[in-house]
């Protein structure tokens, strides 16, 4: 009786392996990505494309402020891939010896966002200095805040913000709620919320673009799955998704 059982078990095992065999080189397991809040819409589509190609990988993408993500990763969060909204926060991770090979995959510029219908009659950057307007900017530590500082300095405008929001999406949310009259947000964010937010193009913004780097992180649990995600973002398909969302691609 005993040998028969062993045989059966072995057969079952072999059958199990057989099922996986046709795609033996395909990555399996789990993949956890931390991505800048401004990437949420486009990375949801990238995630869908990734799942299609790697159905056996359990993908999980967390969207948070780049600075918050960089801190968490530097403190040892078990993350496999980091996509930052600027190179400064990627540098934080690189300084901790955790970013393997950061590559810039997109650029994003700022725009003026106003509540639908532009109730305060905002026309350009100079309006951010108006005292009677409620204005939101990203906190200077957030990539969108750093970009806003560069942009305002280049344009010679001294903004009078009422609040410094923690990241790009929090800033946008204040516009969507109609609680501020104007905010500097990414064009991609404004485009993603066309129904509730109007965008006023800022010609000077092109010079203050943010560069988005992505990198597999040291200690990725499944380096192949992580690299496949980075490759997808950098691929022609990934670039097209990014351009559709309003990003510029290198």
């Amino acid at each position, binding site marked *: 009786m005993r040998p028969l059982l062993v045989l059966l078990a072995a057969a079952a095992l072999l059958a199990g392996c057989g099922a996986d065999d046709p795609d033996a080189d395909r990555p399996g397991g789990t993949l956890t990505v931390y991505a800048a809040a401004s990437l949420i819409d486009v990375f949801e589509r990238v995630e869908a494309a990734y799942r299609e190609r790697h159905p056996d990988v359990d993908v999980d993408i967390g969207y948070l*402020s780049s*600075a*918050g993500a*960089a*801190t968490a990763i*530097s*403190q040892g969060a078990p993350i496999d891939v980091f996509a930052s909204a600027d190179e400064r926060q990627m540098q934080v991770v690189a300084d901790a010896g955790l970013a393997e090979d950061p590559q810039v995959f997109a650029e994003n510029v700022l725009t003026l966002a106003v509540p639908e219908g532009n109730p305060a009659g905002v026309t350009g950057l100079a309006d951010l200095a108006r005292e009677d307007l*409620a204005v*939101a900017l990203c*906190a200077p*530590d*957030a990539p969108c805040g750093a970009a806003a500082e560069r942009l305002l300095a280049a344009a010679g405008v001294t903004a009078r*913000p*009422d*609040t*410094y*929001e*923690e990241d790009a999406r929090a800033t946008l949310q*204040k516009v969507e*709620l*109609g*609680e*501020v009259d104007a905010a500097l947000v990414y064009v991609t964010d404004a485009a993603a919320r066309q129904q509730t937010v109007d965008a006023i193009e800022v010609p000077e913004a092109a010079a203050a673009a943010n560069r988005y780097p992505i990198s597999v992180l040291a200690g990725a649990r499944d380096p192949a799955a992580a690299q496949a995600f980075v490759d997808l973002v950098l691929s022609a398909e990934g670039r097209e998704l990014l351009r559709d969302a309003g990003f510029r691609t290198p």
Partner: protein
Amino acid sequence: MTRPATRVPGPLLVPAALGVAFLVLPLLGLLVRTPWSQLAGQLAEPAVGQALRLSLVSATLATALSLVLGVPLAWVLARSRARGRSVLRALVTVPLVLPPVVGGVALFLVLGRQGIVGSWLDDAFGITIPFTTAAVVIAETFVAMPFLVISVEGALRAADSRFEDVAATLGAGRWTTFRRVTLPLVAPGIAAGAVLCWARALGEFGATITFAGNFPGTTQTMPLAVYLALQRDPDAAIVLSVVLLAVSLATLLLLRDRWLGRAGAA
């Protein structure tokens, strides 16, 4: 008040010690990691003093507001015979279970420029609340007042209502009874509730950053400053946390001695 020393029953000792370790170790971790050399520099930062002052002022105002509104509310919950009291109690404790960020969004929907009450305030008086220090106080009160209400209600229920009955039979009106009998009776409970409320208001983060935003000097309280510093410079964030911790502990100890006296210390 001295009782013969009681020995802790064995089955309580281990979990109690674990409880202490669980609560105190993170604090120790904070102290061990604190770059003490930065302390003087951080304290000299005008932004830090500003945030600390704003935190203390807004938490104190929130506590005052909670006392004015919360003590009467606790009385209603504990003493009135009105129907629907249990529903009322559940409703006023909602902020305890609500994630503070959701509380902040809810405050927008009522008091924001587009909010039900806020839009009227804006149209009629030109008053806008979000992104002001008033918004900080409102957000903190919203989150912290239930702590006071629950404490005071508990004290009222535990207080012997026969004192109030006697006062009434001696001819005291209901208001006089409340002022002269009930209030002194539950004073320790009110003080404990106020301390709890103040501490919760001081640490408030989610509703504040959502509803009041974040601007140095106006709405950036210490917890917001700590959170944002954490993204830039974790060492600075630790120093700020220790400062907030020291100031709040000092205040609580001072108040305990002054307000609660021996009764509170027992």
